[in-house]
């Protein structure tokens, strides 16, 4: 029996079965054992008791996108599981573990022709005092993929420490029982041994990574209004900002949240909020205010399917337009997008640095996929981007808050600085900050705010460029991982393609873009937007090669590596 480089598992269950907990456990145990992995989930609309599936991909290498197909599908029960039909694809080589008392196997599962093994997980759980079927399932899967039972048991002790001896005993027994029951299953190749390379690794979600990136970048105040799927950013920040001498304030609505952030930043404290599409819509007016008054702020938008209330629990990339163009008037500001869970840390930190340096709002376009997925990743490197805003400290004479000078950034007086008094204003203002309707001042300040962004050197972080060939796959955000995997597969098939993933969406970088696309005759644009927002954005701001194809789709299903791969292969 050989070994495989990656394996993917789906654990499905409903009504308190604990599928998601089992998935989390499995990811953590595998990560401790040295594997790398990515966990997402898909759920029904209920708050409790709904159908849910934990989706994992484990590998000996970094995992940045979900698989095309699941190798193991374990059903604690099949109630309403047909909901997940499109998302959990299986095939003839898949193994399905089914509980005879779990309801009827969904027709699409049977139709795929997998091997089905019945394990009576519910009954086994019943036989253990306080036993739970999801622990049985955990043991089963652990055995199948080659995870040592000890790893599972040690983690169990750690995670259930607060739940009491009885719970721990029951779970141990459950895992062991599952482990034993799986002995009879023939699964095929087990996951190859993890590469132990001494690199420190972390287990985190994109939302948590964004929170840490914010603090590293210097954020010390956050205003919070809960919204799926961004709330976890704020929940992570609440206690941790406080430990750093900062504070988080829950606001009565997003209008208050964004204005609180502006007030805190005006007072000198780097400040942030996190929201999703509907919240960002509410915040747009204030973003214009911060742009006009040149106040640094960071807004993380964890994008979800829209428009309007949309599908709150699913990912999409359709807030690009509002992030870049949403403000009335001409209000250029920074827009950046992380490309992976680990990149959520870097990009949020970088955005904080950019906001403070350029005295501008910076929107970070994350999405539900990377925001809520958890992965084991290499510990992200420490980077030197820490917000340092230009402050006016020694003010002599009439202070010009918005003085026109080289580079476009004018030092900001913090309240409390004698002589630096000015009134920040959304009204068009003169260099001294006094409201004016003069043509000269209006244009001078518009030029200043445009030029400070246009003249700034964003360095190489503005985009990720890999590979060669005359075809480039151009994408952004969470699709970067799937694109990368597709390109690797195409390379395996003898077709060379390059990757260009934009991290900085605004201000645009026409010269750098041209350099990176030099020699490319064809580009394949990949994005998760029904209206192809990214394609239109690229067409508007950049010179594109003659041959352009677009692979775009709305949510709720992620765009898979196989789809991108097919698009590459079909375009030879």
């Amino acid at each position: 029996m050989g070994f495989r480089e990656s394996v993917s598992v789906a654990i499905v269950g409903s009504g308190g079965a604990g599928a998601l907990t089992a998935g989390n456990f499995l990811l953590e145990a595998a990560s401790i054992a040295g594997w790398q992995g990515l966990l997402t989930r898909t759920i029904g609309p209920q708050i409790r008791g709904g159908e849910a599936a934990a989706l994992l991909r484990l590998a000996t290498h970094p995992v940045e996108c979900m698989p095309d197909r699941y190798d193991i599908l374990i059903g604690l029960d099949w109630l309403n599981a047909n909901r997940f039909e499109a998302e959990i694809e299986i095939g003839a080589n898949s193994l399905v573990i089914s509980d005879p008392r779990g309801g009827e196997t969904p027709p699409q599962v049977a139709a795929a022709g997998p091997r089905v093994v019945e394990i009576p997980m519910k009954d086994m759980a019943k036989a253990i005092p306080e036993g739970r079927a999801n622990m049985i399932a955990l043991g089963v899967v652990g055995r199948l993929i080659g995870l040592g039972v000890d790893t599972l048991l040690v983690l169990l002790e750690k995670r259930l420490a607060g739940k009491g001896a009885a719970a721990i005993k029951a779970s141990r027994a459950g895992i062991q029982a599952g482990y034993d029951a799986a002995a009879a299953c023939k699964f095929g190749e087990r996951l190859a041994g993890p590469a132990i390379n001494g690199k420190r690794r972390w287990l985190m979600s994109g939302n948590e990574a964004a929170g840490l990136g914010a603090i590293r970048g210097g954020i010390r105040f956050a205003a919070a209004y809960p919204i799926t799927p961004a709330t976890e950013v704020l929940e992570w920040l609440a206690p941790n900002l406080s430990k750093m001498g900062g504070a988080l304030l829950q606001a009565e609505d997003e209008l208050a949240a964004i204005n609180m952030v502006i007030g805190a930043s005006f007072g000198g404290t780097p400040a942030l909020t996190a929201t999703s599409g509907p919240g960002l819509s509410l915040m747009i007016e204030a973003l214009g205010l911060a742009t006009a008054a040149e106040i640094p702020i960071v807004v993380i938008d964890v994008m979800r399917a829209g428009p309007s209330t949309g599908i709150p629990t699913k990912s999409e990339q359709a807030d690009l337009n509002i992030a870049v163009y949403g403000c009335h008037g001409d209000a250029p500001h920074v827009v950046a997008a992380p490309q992976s869970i680990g990149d959520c840390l870097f990009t949020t930190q970088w955005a904080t640095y950019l906001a403070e340096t350029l005295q501008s709002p910076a929107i970070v376009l994350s999405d539900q996929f990377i925001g809520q997925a958890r992965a084991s990743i290499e510990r992200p490197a420490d980077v030197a981007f820490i917000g340092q805003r230009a402050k006016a400290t020694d003010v002599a004479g009439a202070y010009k808050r918005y003085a026109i000078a080289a580079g476009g950034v004018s030092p900001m007086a913090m309240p409390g600085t004698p002589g630096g008094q000015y009134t920040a204003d959304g009204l068009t203002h003169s260099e001294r900050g006094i409201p004016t309707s003069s043509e000269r001042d209006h244009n001078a300040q518009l030029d200043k705010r445009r030029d400070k962004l246009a003249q700034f050197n964003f360095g190489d972080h503005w985009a990720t460029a890999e590979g060669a060939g005359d075809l480039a796959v151009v994408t952004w955000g969470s699709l970067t991982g799937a694109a990368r995997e597709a390109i690797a597969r195409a390379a395996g098939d003898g077709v060379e393609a390059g990757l260009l993933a934009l991290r900085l969406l605004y201000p645009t970088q026409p010269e750098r873009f041209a350099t990176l696309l030099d020699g490319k005759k064809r580009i394949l644009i990949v994005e998760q937007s029904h209206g192809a927002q990214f394609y239109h954005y690229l067409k508007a701001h950049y010179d594109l090669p003659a041959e352009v194809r677009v692979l775009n789709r709305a949510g709720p299903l992620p765009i898979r590596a196989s789809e991108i791969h097919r698009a590459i292969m079909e375009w030879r």
Partner: protein
Amino acid sequence: MSVVDMRPACKPGDYKSDIKPIWCPGCGDYHVLMSFTRAFAELGLPPENIVVVSGIGCSSRIPAYTTCYGFHGVHGRSLAIAAGLKVTRPELTVVVASGDGDGYSIGGNHFLHACRRNIDMTYVVMDNHIYGMTKGQPSPTTEPEFDTALSPGGTGLRPFHPLVIALASGANFVARCFSGEPNETAAVLVEAIRHPGFSFVEVLSPCVTFRPDEKEWKNYVHPAPVAPTSDPAKAARRLMTDDGFNTGILYRGDRKPYQPSVGQPSIDVSELERDFEL
């Protein structure tokens, strides 16, 4: 002279900037500006340690007419801006200025929560029972029979009672003043600013352009016949028969102001990584 006064000799003129207000001559807000500068002088606070935060409307133009730091934000959001500012810079004196439209209509929700949150700041609403800046639409405090272009024949709606709302929502200091009595208003502002927590001061400030009838206000206002109370139930009872022109401090509460402790970190940022280490 016996005691050395550590405060610099502050005159109201020190707090008035050289920018000429755009308010119509006759506007009550000129008096309110006077009250502000007189109050600041009385408090002896250096102008750079005061921030005047406002929204949109005639009243909201006030920050630039002072020599303090100012924030002229967007419509209705001044309390939120002030909250973020004060919580992160607790040593500053934060005064929020608004009008009845900005403060009670679009800003209504923030008003409720600002009272509830009780962050230490002073909220001054210049109430002229009209939207002045946009040419005379009814505001939440406009009388139901007052005829306007947007509400021919009057709105027919019962006006909002800001003092009731403030008291019910938890404001720690509630007062009403009349702009035409700037020294009294200044004295109330001094107390309001000194009082910890969220202080709400409604200042009746006539609009000479759209409410010339408000010239009569000087004949309607009268000082409250009883001293301020610290009993919210008493205050509520008084409000039941309030005619809208009682002036003076109604209520002084003792709720502890909301202020998280900010400043020094208690850990190194690297310790935050422990959450994630495998």
